[in-house]
């Protein structure tokens, strides 16, 4: 029963996510013709709710699909489908953010506007490995949200949030990568432990 409700929730979230991404894709040809000022203006006025609500939905959709995959880990075909769904969600969620994640990662501190202007950044990123891109996006997102309380330049953490300045300084890079690796190692360790345990003991 829980799994069925969860399935429905995941479907709804994924549909909402794909809706926003599809809208982004549709408006992109028109937006590419804007000059810098118009682009910035549109970026800062139109997408307010996209980042606040849409961003939450995107993250929730990825998490929901991931959780579904864990629920179904005994039933292999269903789990694979859910994992594929989660991967699709990640791709859909990252599509609108294709503006040079390296810039987010490395130096968005001093020049918040430079990378947003460059709509063609997407072309460069296609060449990198998807895994590398996802890693960069994850690190950039964590560091930006915690370090300056904003996501893609739009404040998301509320008025009273005190930014963790350390996250945008050099140590934050090491720390974020370390914590991500810790999470991955924990995940793997868990898989090994589960495989080693007798089947009934789960």
């Amino acid at each position: 029963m829980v799994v069925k409700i969860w399935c429905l929730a995941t479907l709804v979230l994924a549909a909402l996510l794909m809706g926003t991404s599809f809208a982004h894709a549709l408006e992109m040809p028109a937006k590419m013709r804007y000059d810098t000022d118009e682009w910035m203006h549109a970026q800062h006025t139109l997408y307010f709710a996209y980042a606040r609500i849409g961003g939450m939905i995107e993250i929730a959709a990825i998490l929901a699909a991931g959780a579904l995959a864990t629920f179904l880990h005994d039933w292999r075909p269903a789990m694979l489908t859910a994992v594929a769904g989660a991967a699709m969600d990640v791709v859909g969620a990252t599509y609108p953010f294709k503006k040079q994640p390296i810039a987010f990662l490395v130096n968005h501190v001093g020049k918040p506007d430079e990378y947003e202007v460059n709509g063609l950044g997407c072309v460069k990123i296609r060449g990198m490995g998807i895994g590398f891109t996802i890693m960069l996006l994850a690190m950039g997102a964590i560091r930006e949200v915690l370090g300056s309380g904003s996501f893609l330049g739009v404040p998301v953490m509320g008025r009273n949030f005190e930014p963790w300045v350390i996250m945008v300084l050099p140590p934050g890079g090491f720390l974020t990568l370390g914590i991500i690796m810790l999470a991955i190692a924990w995940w793997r360790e868990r898989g090994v432990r589960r495989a080693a345990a007798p089947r009934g003991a789960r």
Partner: protein
Amino acid sequence: MIGDLTWILISSMVVNNFTLTLFLGLCSFFGVTNKQETALRLGMANLFVLVLTAVAAWFLNRFILEAAPYLRLISFIIVIASLVQIVEMAIKKLSPALFRALGIYLPLITTNCAILALAIFQTNRGYGLLQGLAFAIGAGLGLTLALSLMASIRVRLDVADVPRVGRGLTVVLIIATSLSLAFMGFAGLGSSS
């Protein structure tokens, strides 16, 4: 003049440490800091190549690249690589013991991003020969410092009881965080002068 050079040296050594605050040369920082001696040796080799690079970059900028500034990057890469190659052959002939001690690290340093970064920083800031040398020595000492600090911590880590999930690179990254945090403390040095 002397004050200027000293400041460049100190600044590139600790305040803008190549590894810990600029993320340059991280591969060797994480890759070969297992043993104190190796790390120290690699740091020294880095210092040596950095000084060579500074001189070469100054020479290129002063006498050659004025006519063709667009060839800067590729000429840096080629000149540094061939310089290291020549030095490697000379060391192999003159002092086989040192050659064996440096091992693979000497050629490996050629493509280290810290080396190319030094040449590019030096060009962008318009350093002269002496300033470039001070910059290179400072950066080299800073790299050596970071590498040997990390190595000495990792040596003790071998006998420490690290949780199983955190073993390997993860705990090293967390240590790098605190080292980098410690080096952030030097950032206040510049404000008074």
